[in-house]
């Protein structure tokens, strides 16, 4: 709980850098494409549902128009024996083109579900396929027969001695009579259907039926008979029969869908009236396929979809594909096999046959295509019985394409906007960070070590909050500058103020000595001497306090000229040998003249301070080493002395004003100005001052780098 409150106070991304925060913030625009997807999905759902609803409405309308129209559906008032199906029923498939009657099975789909298979003697068998197109019924008899026997003669069609293999076609006609037709030939080729008619005197003759076309051809394992019959001839029942003979004139072995005894057709022909198509054509819409099926699911007719107007091909390319993948997920079925699709259509028909209009989606023939289908029951005239089902199927390409286009545009746009927003945020964050960093760096360095203040900060002109910050920093620094300025001049001012009373004391003492010494006792003289000593010390203190100011002024008035640093250090070292006889001095200076551009008086002063310092921190008899090294652009001057280590924290502070690390009390006044003066002089010469311990910790070394 506390952690949550903490998080609430600081924000969940408080731990990150500003740049990262703004970037994360910009990333939230990624919600735009997501929202776009959601919108597109909604839109798609609405589109799909409205599509399904309108398709369902159309379907219901068509179903209504077919209500009770048995003669259209079944070419009769009713389909006899509708309840239950007979294995000898023939349900022709609806063809979209005219088949060629050539006695070859290659046009026929031998795995079609309406195949009727009848076993004959031995390994013989009959496979019967049926189809309709327009006003014709087409039949194919695929017979496995180890030996195909032809009739001996064209003429003696009824002479049992001459008979070979025969095929029978029987159906009831519109008037209720039975038509029995046979096919017999003396060889492969076109064959006429003939009917046995009883002429006068009881003579039977074979009469050709010219309306029926047929061709009889040999196949790999038997023969094929293709027959075309005008649907107008055929009534409700139809069947075929094969008379198989092992040799010409032998006893026949009959098998097929006819009653063998009287050649009566018992299997029904479940085919719609040719007028049904005309009726349906008025409902035809681009891209919509109409299918009428019986209540058992047998397809009566199918009206193919006229071509879709316009370009509804789906968009290609990487991005649309990605979008689809992202969007569709598993909601819409992908492409499925033919069998699956048919099964889905049948299921839909079956559901509609139970009495209620239904709608469904299933995968199309091609990749990513979707089919939307609706089915509605067709009722009998009294509205009590379902006599058939009408199903409308439409590829969903149209709305999917519409959706894809809208979506692709939307997503492209939002992607672009997002990229732009992220880029802009990144740029902004970078700039802001840079500005803040610059301001931070400037404010860090604004206050120099020795208290000098630079008031000029970046961003001071900016009109925004950073500008305000910079300006308030500036005014803060200004006040600080005034304060440090006051502090810096305090010592000088104090020295000046104290000097006047000191002068009064001194001159008074001197007057006292001059005028009253004769009458003074010994004690009084001692006191006067002490007072003088005290005032001398006070004077020394004042001088030390003003030293830094004087050096700063001296630096300001210094003039540079070229001189030999080596000679200067050598001469100075000689002087130090005289001044500090208790120390040894070692000089390491290059032989050749070392010309540098600078103020020699200041360098001597700097060297004085360094040597003073080295002498103070070393013991009698120690050796102080002064080294001069020359580089390309710089010279290095170092003074090393044995003695105590430098305290670690002082390495950088050593050269600051008023800092000192002397611990033991000293008679001379120290204000920590010596090394500060060293630094001022080094900086005047374009260099720097550093202090370090000797590598073996035996003492300290002060190194000055100066420009040549």
């Amino acid at each position, binding site marked *: 709980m506390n952690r949550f409150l903490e998080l609430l106070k600081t924000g969940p991304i408080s731990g990150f850098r500003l740049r990262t925060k703004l970037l994360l913030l910009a990333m939230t625009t990624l919600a735009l494409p997501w929202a776009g997807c959601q919108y597109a999905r909604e839109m798609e759902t609405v589109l799909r549902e409205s599509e399904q609803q309108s398709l369902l409405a159309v379907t219901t309308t068509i179903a209504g128009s077919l209500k009770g129209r048995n003669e259209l559906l079944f070419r009769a008032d009713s389909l006899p024996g509708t309840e239950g199906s007979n294995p000898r029923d023939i349900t022709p498939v609806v063809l979209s083109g005219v088949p060629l009657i050539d006695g070859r099975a290659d046009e026929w789909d031998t795995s079609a579900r309406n195949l009727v298979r009848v076993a004959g003697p031995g390994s013989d068998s009959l496979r019967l396929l049926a189809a309709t197109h327009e006003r014709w019924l087409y039949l194919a008899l695929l017979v496995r027969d180890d030996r195909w026997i032809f009739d001996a003669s064209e003429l003696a069609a009824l002479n049992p001695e001459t008979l070979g293999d025969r095929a029978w076609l029987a159906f009831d006609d519109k008037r209720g009579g039975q038509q029995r037709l046979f096919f017999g030939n003396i060889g492969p080729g076109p064959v006429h259907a003939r009917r046995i008619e009883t002429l006068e005197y009881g003579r039977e003759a074979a009469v050709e039926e010219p309306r029926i076309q047929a061709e009889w051809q040999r196949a790999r394992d038997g023969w094929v008979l293709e027959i075309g019959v005008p649907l107008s001839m055929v009534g409700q029942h139809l069947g075929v029969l094969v008379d198989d003979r092992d040799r010409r004139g032998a006893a026949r072995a009959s098998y097929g869908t006819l009653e063998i005894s009287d050649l009566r057709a018992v299997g029904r022909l479940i085919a719609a009236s040719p007028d049904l198509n005309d009726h349906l054509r008025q409902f035809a819409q681009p891209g919509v396929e109409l299918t009428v099926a019986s209540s058992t699911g047998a397809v009566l007719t199918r009206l193919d979809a006229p071509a879709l107007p316009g370009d509804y091909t789906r968009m290609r390319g990487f991005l649309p594909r990605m979008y689809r993948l992202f969007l569709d997920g598993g909601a819409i079925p992908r492409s499925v096999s033919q069998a699956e699709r048919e099964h889905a259509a049948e299921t839909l028909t079956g559901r509609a046959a139970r009495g209620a209009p239904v709608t469904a989606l299933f995968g199309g023939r091609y990749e990513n295509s979707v089919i939307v289908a609706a089915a509605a029951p067709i009722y009998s005239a009294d509205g009590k019985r379902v006599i058939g089902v009408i199903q409308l199927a439409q590829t969903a390409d149209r709305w999917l394409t519409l959706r894809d286009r809208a979506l692709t545009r939307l997503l492209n746009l939002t992607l672009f906007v997002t990229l732009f927003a992220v880029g802009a945020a990144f740029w902004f964050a970078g700039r802001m960070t840079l500005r803040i960093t610059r301001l931070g760096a400037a404010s860090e360095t604004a206050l120099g070590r020795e208290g000098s203040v630079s008031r000029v900060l970046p961003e001071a002109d900016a009109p925004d909050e950073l500008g305000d910050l910079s300006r308030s920093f500036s005014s803060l620094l200004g006040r600080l500058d005034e304060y440090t300025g006051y502090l810096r001049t305090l010592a000088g001012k104090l020295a000046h103020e104290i*000097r006047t009373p000191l002068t009064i004391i001194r001159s008074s003492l*001197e007057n006292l000595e*001059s005028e009253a010494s004769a009458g003074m006792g010994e004690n009084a003289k001692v006191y006067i001497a002490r007072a003088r000593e005290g005032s001398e010390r006070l004077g020394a203190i004042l001088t030390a306090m003003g030293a830094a100011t004087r050096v700063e002024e001296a630096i300001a008035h210094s003039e540079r000229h070229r001189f030999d640093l080596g000679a200067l250090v050598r001469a100075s070292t000689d002087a130090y040998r005289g001044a500090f006889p208790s120390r040894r001095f070692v000089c390491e200076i290059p032989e050749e003249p070392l010309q540098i551009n600078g103020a020699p008086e200041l360098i001597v*002063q700097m060297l004085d301070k360094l040597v003073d310092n080295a002498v103070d921190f070393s013991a009698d008899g120690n050796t102080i080493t002064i080294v001069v090294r020359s580089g390309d652009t710089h010279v290095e001057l170092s003074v090393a002395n044995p003695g105590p280590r430098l305290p670690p924290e002082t390495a950088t502070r050593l050269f600051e004003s008023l800092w000192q690390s002397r611990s033991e009390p000293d008679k001379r006044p120290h204000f920590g100005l010596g090394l500060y003066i060293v630094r001022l002089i080094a900086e005047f010469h374009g260099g720097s001052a550093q202090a370090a311990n000797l590598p073996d910790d035996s003492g300290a070394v002060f190194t000055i780098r100066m420009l040549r």
Partner: protein
Amino acid sequence: MKKTIAIVEDERAIRDNYAAAFSREGYAVRGYPNRREAMTAFAARLPDLAVIDISLEDEPEGGFELCRELRGLSAELPIIFLTARDSELDAVSGLRLGADDFLTKDLSLAHLIARVNALFRRVDALRRPAEDKQVIHRGALSLDSERMSVTWNGQVVLLSLTEFWIVYALTKHAGHVKNRQQLMDAANVVLDDNTITSHIKRIRRKFQVVDESFDAVHTVYGMGYRWVE
């Protein structure tokens, strides 16, 4: 007749102390606390020597102004600046105004009196004809120790008393190095190293006014200075 010394100093105790010291030496002393009173008195009667504090009551640089006005009244009158301020700028301005010397108040009374005596001696010497035996000749340089005046190539170089004493110390044993302490002793001043350095600098500059190629004062680093002919 007693010589008159005017002390213009706003700090009464200092003024009185100095007055006491000068009186002891036999001078007549008159003290003034500010520029206005001093000028009124000077207009009536000039002193023989003036010791002036730079900062006077409400005028931080009133001494300079007074010096200028006093020089307007008399070109020869010796003027000594005395101040608690020891910065360079004060010194430079004071001398440019024609002061004969510039001293800080740390100077002991004895030193101050020596200086005053020297200045009076110079005034006296200037009134007498020059005597050659007092004059040191060092090449282009002639140095009259009595009149405390210096010429270079026959042209007068205007040095303050302190500067004269430094040059005198350097030239007395030309070629010998004089360290800072020796120069300070010679000049009767207690100054820090920087002040000696700036005195030397100013001496060079003053000689360079009359001769641009002047290069007789050499720095011996770490030791001091030397006069080279």
